[in-house]
């Protein structure tokens, strides 16, 4: 009986430490420990690469600025929700990290959202599923440094439905794709429009002729792509060209930068544009890419994720410096809500967060979103801002 009681007490103690609720912790030597969780293995390891590398780059640049000793603790989530759950439990319970960066894949982020929120650690996320953010929480630990897909849909809806176009959506059969199609449908409803056809593509699909044929049969002439991998986007745009579907426009987001131009032919990006709030062709991102290349001997795969991660690290370390103790989680969270600005290279974003607003980007102003496409050589080019494009001047 006594043994049973000891076991029960030990189990209860373990459960309490796992469920958290404590707002203090951290390492004894003052090192700030950031847990980094992403798909090092699995179907989309590029999202891990451009999570850990920019984190290392940012820490190397910012630790001195904020006079902090920072350690990154990496755990592989294997690209699955189960794996993400195990990885986050490990970071929280075994590694006792002060903050969590990732997972970058929306489905995995959704899986761990409750655990991190209940445990109460600053959570830095570039994942774009709107569902992971609940700003009604009294203590919201999530700070998103990427846009969310609802905001993206809000800004691209005007472009998609322009000229009374019949809109079709192709999405990848994962949480990211589903989130994208749900957001576009919601925006269509707000505009009093409907989405004419929705087709899903399995990651790595060998053929998508059926999907495009169905869009064609539905009379679609404006297409939104919510696809996780640029290689799958290439499969879809190739089939669009092959099937003779000639949409007025194909709109997507910056995930297309991973591999698309490498694999696609010029005919595939003729009417294709994507929208992003960052200046992806400017001097600042070019400098960041140069630093990245110098450190890792490769160009960034997902420059927008690099940008988001660097913003997240800057915001968090600024919060820690302000709070004075990475282990005082609540103080760090409040400090992050009040920081004056976030820097990414030479870019500065003023008043990034506030109590009740943990999103770095907002959808309200179309002129703050840029429209990009590819030129004849496959190089990225900015066509103008969304407002200009909607008025036909880009």
């Amino acid at each position, binding site marked *: 009986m006594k043994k049973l009681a000891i076991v029960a007490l030990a189990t209860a103690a373990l459960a309490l430490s796992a469920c958290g609720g404590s707002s203090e912790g951290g390492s004894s030597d003052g090192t700030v420990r950031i847990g980094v969780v992403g798909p090092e*293995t699995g*179907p*989309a*390891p*590029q999202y891990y*690469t451009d999570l850990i590398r920019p984190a290392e780059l940012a820490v190397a640049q910012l630790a001195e600025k904020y006079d902090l000793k920072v350690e990154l603790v990496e755990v592989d989530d294997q690209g699955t929700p189960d794996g993400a759950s195990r990885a986050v439990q490990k970071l929280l319970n075994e590694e006792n990290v002060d903050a969590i960066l990732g997972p970058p894949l929306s489905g995995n982020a959704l899986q761990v959202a409750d655990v991190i929120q209940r445990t109460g650690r600053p959570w830095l996320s570039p994942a774009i599923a709107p569902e992971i953010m609940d700003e009604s929480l009294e203590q919201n630990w999530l700070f998103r440094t990427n846009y969310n897909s609802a905001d993206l849909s809000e800004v691209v809806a005007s472009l998609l439905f322009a000229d009374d176009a019949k809109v079709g959506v192709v999405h990848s*059969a994962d949480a990211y794709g589903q989130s994208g199609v749900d957001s576009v449908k919601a925006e269509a409803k707000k505009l009093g429009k409907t989405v004419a056809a929705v*087709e*899903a*593509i*399995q*990651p*790595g*699909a*060998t*053929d*998508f*002729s*059926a*999907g495009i*044929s*169905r869009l064609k049969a539905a009379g679609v002439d404006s297409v939104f792509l919510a696809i996780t991998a640029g*290689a799958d986007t*290439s*499969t879809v745009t*190739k089939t669009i*060209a*092959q*099937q*003779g579907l000639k949409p007025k426009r194909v709109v997507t987001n910056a995930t297309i930068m*991973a*591999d698309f131009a*490498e*694999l696609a*032919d010029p005919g595939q990006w003729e009417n294709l544009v994507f929208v992003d709030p960052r200046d992806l062709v400017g001097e600042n991102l070019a400098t960041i890419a140069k630093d990245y290349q110098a450190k890792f001997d*490769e160009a960034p*795969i997902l420059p927008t994720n690099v940008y988001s991660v660097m913003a997240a690290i800057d915001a968090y370390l600024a919060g820690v410096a302000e709070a004075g103790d990475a282990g005082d989680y609540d103080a760090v969270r409040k400090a992050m809500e009040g920081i004056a600005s976030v820097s990414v290279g030479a870019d500065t974003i003023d008043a990034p967060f506030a109590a009740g607003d943990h999103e770095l980007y907002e959808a309200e102003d179309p002129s703050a979103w840029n429209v990009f496409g590819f030129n004849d050589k496959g190089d990225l080019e900015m066509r103008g801002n969304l407002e200009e494009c909607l008025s036909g001047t880009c």
Partner: protein
Amino acid sequence: MDAIVSGLVLGGLYALVAQGFVLTYVTSRTINFASGEFLAIGAFVALGVGSWSWLPTPGKVAVGVVAAGIIGAIAYRLLVVPFARSEHDSRWLLSTVGLSYVLLNLLTHAEGANPQKLPFARAEGTTSLLGVAVNKQQLWIALVAVLVTVALVLGSRFTSAGVLMRATAEDPQAVSLMGVSPRRVGVMAYALASAIAGLAGILWAAEVGATPGLGVHILVSAFAVGVIGGLTSFWGPLVGGALFAVVVQVGSYQVGALWGQVFGLLLVIVVLVIRPEGLLGRRMEAKL
């Protein structure tokens, strides 16, 4: 009509990969579950010699094919033979699945996860087949699948190596008593099967880029094709490939792109219930 034509063309890729299953199954009653990674090996080796400007495209393709074949033969000797010692020894199943994971991780660490364009062995654009626009590279792969099938059928009938393969398939003990090692025949079959997988990998990578996971998405469909057509007939993969891919495409066109694969796998279940040995196969003792 679109669904049928595109299905027939797409089925060629699956049939080509499934030929490897037939080769290893008839000679050793084993299947290489790491076949998907041999697609990637062929593609990456070909990519590696892509910069050798003195070597013409067929030579680059041949290097990738031979490399995949050699690695396949070694894999058989080291990872299949020791784990397939009797008719009831099925540890080879685990060792080939394990090999699949090892190769996938090795390739990912060596080459990265991102697709790399293979700048040769590609027929660009589309062409019209029975009034339907089809991808030229997919059509090319389908033609290669037919050529490989015909070569295997003729080779198994009219060459000494082919006769040995057929004899081993019929009665490995009798072959052994005649002084021929069934293991040597198995090495030959694994080498040929892996070489065919390498060829499929090169041709497919020319279309979609070389990635470590190149074969992962094809493997399930190829296995389904092998089961439908029968793992003991060289004509089986062609018939299975055509049926499976047409059913997948008709399902995708009629119901939705995600549903096609479901219909295809339902067809596998139907075949397994009605004719477990496959449409063109014949019953054989398996080591499972």
